[in-house]
């Protein structure tokens, strides 16, 4: 911070804590910011693509996460630099909106900034660089729109083309070996809950439950609801057909007033009366449930053994301690109503399901309740199995990505081919446009084109291919043949044509990547002054 002296030569303070603040300004600030962001993107670069490596991250409290998902890695990385944090938010924003392509967007933004840094070193004004990037971004979005191929829905049950798109999202993850099966599962799950009228999918209706143990192959899709609970009494039947479900938010116990209260008992008779009253409550409650015609009670709260055995004796099945969210899901799926008081139970309020069964997983005594054949079957559950907790967690994240891809297809069914092919196609377009651009923005546009090449370069690098040679060869082939489907053959399948390899990505996701990365690059390039209070630990 600049110091100013008064007429007596004393320095005077203009800003609060000015001697404790760090300040970088001008081009130095731009350079420092660019360096911070490229460092973040470099860390993610090796995770890109089907052959990308995973990162192992340990959180401060010792939890270990193994992930390949850009947003997850950045979140766990605990980035401290203010500008680098923007990169973390960038990945999150892509994750929130699209769900897939989080690594790609960070790598692209890093590449853009790296290129911009080069131009700024050459003396170009950051605002002019931004202008050029903007123009190039518009060209890219337009080009992506042209390249997009609509994937029509076929009458078939499982859309083979859609499965391929979901499989592409899964191919870079730990579950890639089972990508085909899991992708099918994702497509079926999304199709089951999709709202075709609004062309949207409420992903909350797809629950992804993880259960360590078993193998990834044991992962299953349940067209219904799975709750991680068991029947309250071990002798209750493990399967209820044609279930009529009573959904309760009241506990099986004498009702308690919310106001503080005291019951004074002065004699043995009174004590007996109280005990009798308590017992009456239980019988009355169970009677009420039974009278309504229910054969299964699902209760948000617990109930003690006395009530439990009463329920069993009356031939009722019961599940206790079911969370609020599950209660709601069950109510929606079975068409039942949530009942807050035993007095209000009526036959109309019961939910219905074809089959409710208790399933044991593996040899452990882990049991889950599966509710199937609900009238409003708008809820499905995927139960993920796997060798250990970390694998299950990563598999859950991967499935989320794949589900998002299918959802995006429902929203907008256009796809482009992956493997870096579209980036190269866009790069070529931007390059051509740069030549006919008047003004120094053309340099920024060329830089943008170079940055787009970072994606195929990283893919090739991660696959152990000679990066520059590979990309140069494919680019040349694209220009020569005009085939925009040529990309990097990461899995060594013997062809560069991504259409043959069926590597699909959604147009929407790609466009979003380019737009978000450009927006972030512009935002960072516009900062020329960074004011930070010094580290609090040594400042105070």
């Amino acid at each position, binding site marked *: 911070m600049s110091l100013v002296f008064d007429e007596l030569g004393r320095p005077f303070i203009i800003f609060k804590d000015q*001697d404790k603040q760090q300040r970088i300004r001008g081009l130095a600030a731009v350079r420092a910011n660019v360096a911070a962001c490229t460092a973040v993107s470099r860390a993610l670069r090796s995770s890109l693509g089907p052959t990308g490596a995973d990162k192992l991250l340990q959180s401060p409290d010792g939890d270990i996460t193994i992930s390949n998902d850009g947003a997850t890695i950045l979140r766990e990385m605990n980035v401290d630099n203010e500008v680098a944090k923007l990169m973390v938010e960038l990945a999150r924003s892509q994750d929130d909106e699209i769900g897939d392509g989080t690594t790609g967007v960070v790598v692209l933004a890093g590449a853009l900034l790296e290129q911009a840094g080069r131009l700024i070193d050459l003396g170009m004004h950051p605002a002019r660089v931004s202008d050029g990037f903007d123009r190039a971004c518009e060209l890219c979005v337009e080009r992506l729109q042209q390249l997009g191929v609509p994937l029509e829905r076929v009458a078939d049950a499982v859309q083979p083309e859609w499965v391929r798109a979901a499989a592409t999202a899964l191919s870079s993850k730990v579950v890639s070996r089972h990508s085909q099966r899991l992708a099918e599962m994702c497509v079926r799950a999304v199709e089951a809950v999709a709202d075709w009228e609004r062309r949207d999918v409420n992903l909350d209706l797809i629950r992804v439950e993880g259960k360590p143990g078993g193998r990834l192959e044991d992962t299953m899709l349940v067209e219904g609801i799975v709750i991680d609970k068991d029947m309250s009494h071990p002798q209750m039947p493990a399967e209820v057909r044609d279930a009529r479900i009573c959904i309760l938010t009241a506990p099986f116990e004498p009702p308690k007033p919310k106001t503080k209260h005291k019951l004074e008992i002065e004699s043995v008779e009174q004590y007996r009366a109280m005990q009798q009253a308590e017992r009456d409550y239980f019988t009355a409650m169970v009677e009420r449930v039974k009278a309504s015609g229910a054969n299964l009670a699902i209760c948000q709260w617990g109930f003690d053994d006395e009530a439990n055995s009463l329920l069993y004796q009356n031939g009722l099945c019961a599940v206790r301690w079911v969370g609020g969210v599950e209660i*709601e899901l069950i109510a929606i799926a079975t068409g039942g109503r949530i009942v807050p008081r035993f007095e209000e139970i009526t036959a109309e309020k019961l939910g219905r399901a074809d089959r409710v069964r208790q399933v044991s997983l593996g040899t452990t005594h882990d049991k889950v309740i599966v509710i199937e054949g609900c009238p409003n079957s708008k809820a499905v559950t995927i139960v993920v199995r796997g060798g250990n907790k970390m694998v299950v967690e990563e598999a859950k994240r991967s499935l989320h990505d794949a589900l998002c891809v299918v959802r995006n297809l429902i929203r907008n069914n256009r796809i482009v081919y992956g493997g870096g092919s579209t980036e190269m196609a866009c790069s070529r377009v931007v390059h051509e446009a740069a030549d006919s651009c008047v003004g120094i923005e053309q340099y920024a546009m060329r830089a943008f084109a170079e940055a787009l090449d970072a994606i195929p370069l990283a893919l090739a690098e991660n696959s152990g291919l000679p990066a520059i040679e590979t990309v140069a060869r494919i680019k040349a082939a694209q220009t020569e043949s005009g085939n925009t489907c040529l990309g990097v053959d990461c899995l060594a399948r013997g062809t560069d044509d991504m259409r043959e390899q069926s590597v699909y990505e959604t147009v929407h996701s790609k466009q979003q990547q380019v737009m978000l990365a450009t927006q972030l690059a512009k935002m960072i390039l516009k900062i020329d002054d960074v004011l930070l209070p010094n580290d609090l630990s040594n400042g105070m």
Partner: protein
Amino acid sequence: MASHRPGAMQVPVIILKEGTEDSQGAGQIISNINACEVVVDVLRTTLGPRGMDKLIRGSDGRVTISNDGATILRLLNVVHPAAKLLVEVARSQDEEVGDGTTTVVLLAGELLRQAKAFIEDGVHPHTLIRTYRAAGRLAAQRIQQVQVDVAALRTVGDTEATAAEYQRTLERCASTALNSKLIARHKHLFAGMAVEAVRTLDAELDLSMVGIKKVGGGSITDSFLVPGVGFKKTFSYAGFEQQPKKILDPKVMLLNIELELKSEKENAEVRIASTDEYQRVVDAEWNIIYEKLDAIAASGAQVVLSRLAIGDLATQYFADRHIFCAGRVPDADMQRVAKAVGAAVQTTLTQLQADKALGTCACFEERQVGAERFNFFTGCPHARSATVVLRGGSEQFLEEAERSLHDALMIVRRTIKFPALVAGGGAIEMELSRYLREHSRRLQGAGQLIMAAYARALETIPRALCENAGLDATDVLNRLRAQHATDERALWCGVDLETGDTGDCWAAHVWEPALVRRNALAAATEAACVILSVDETLKAETNENGGGGGGGGMAGAGGMPRTAGRRRPGRGRM
């Protein structure tokens, strides 16, 4: 230390308490000016379409990226008393017109810089102040002479052509305000949005009826305007999903009541003598809440909003009766809804008068925006209102977008109220500068030089515009000066940053409300005059400071009144 020594042998007479800082005289004025210059230098690079942003992390760890002069100054925590005046000027401009905060600080700073030479030459500050004031008045008059009145567009019949032209005019003004911001690339989208939002309001143009909501994720181009009130879905209990999510012509009830099964009094204790009474106490409690719920259901309300919690029991009760409910609705949103649907917030449900308590609108709907869900009330009959939903990559980006949009909204509002425009891009400043310079030649005495200095100070705006764009400022300025001096028609000649040359800014549609400029000039002149008229500063020793005055900036600032931290409602920044 202010201690006077009347004689060599005498004890020094201590007038001021130990620790009080004191400085005075011409030197003091100059050091004040120096301090102001430091502040101005921080802001200089943010001016104009090629201006840069500042990234500031406050002591609370929050990061702000901004281009808005008032925001930056507030976050800088200026403690120097004279420099603080500049901060106040920026704030008042922000509150008065909402835009042009950087301009006003730059102008004030430049006026002071020009004054420095005169002070050093021994010109009495009062002479300077007098001439500055006169120059300020002349400039304001000149703006009124040259401003272009667009009021005619609004009043000349409601033909389609003039209406469209009026719309375009407003949009151009909003675009000019957005030019320097991060969202400049999408200024057409946002300018249109700002104009539409302001024009949906009724004649009073109360900007608090325009809500700005930020939803992370998505692209900035996904931002949209809803002609109605909207707020984020509040926390909900089980059963919420079974409620209706779209109601046409709903009856809306607003409450300030907790709808939860709970003990009525905190410290009450019920003594129950027998088990029979027990059930009655339980029933009594249930009845209290059921009475409330029944009253609501009986009134025919279809949408129930409460400032306080709506519990799970009530949620399920409403779900059974196809009523939508939301609890813990933020206060500002509640008031907007109340105004828009014409419902009064009820604090009790006894003797509920359904016809008076209930409001209505054309459509209530829950909509998914990115990862969030929003409740929208559209087609409100009572007060017209608008909600802008901003989308974008990061929190900082959204906040800056909100600030920028706010500026644009203010400008549109100003333009509607005072429909007179001038051209930006330094054009109006060059014109005023020429006018004052010519006028100065007719003055006698020191006034001549001082008014010329004022004229020179005005050139700081086009100069900063050029410098920020990396143009040769001196060269461009010389050309502009020549054009303005020789050609009457070159009235609106300013800097064209696209080509790096001079050009007609009016033709390029860089339009600004004349009021913004007039206010900026008046505020800058006034600030400069105040700082020039101060020739002594006394700074009391702050309490925490144990006398280590030198580097104790941190402790010394602790006791300063935190005017800079004052928040304005409705803008939601920190």
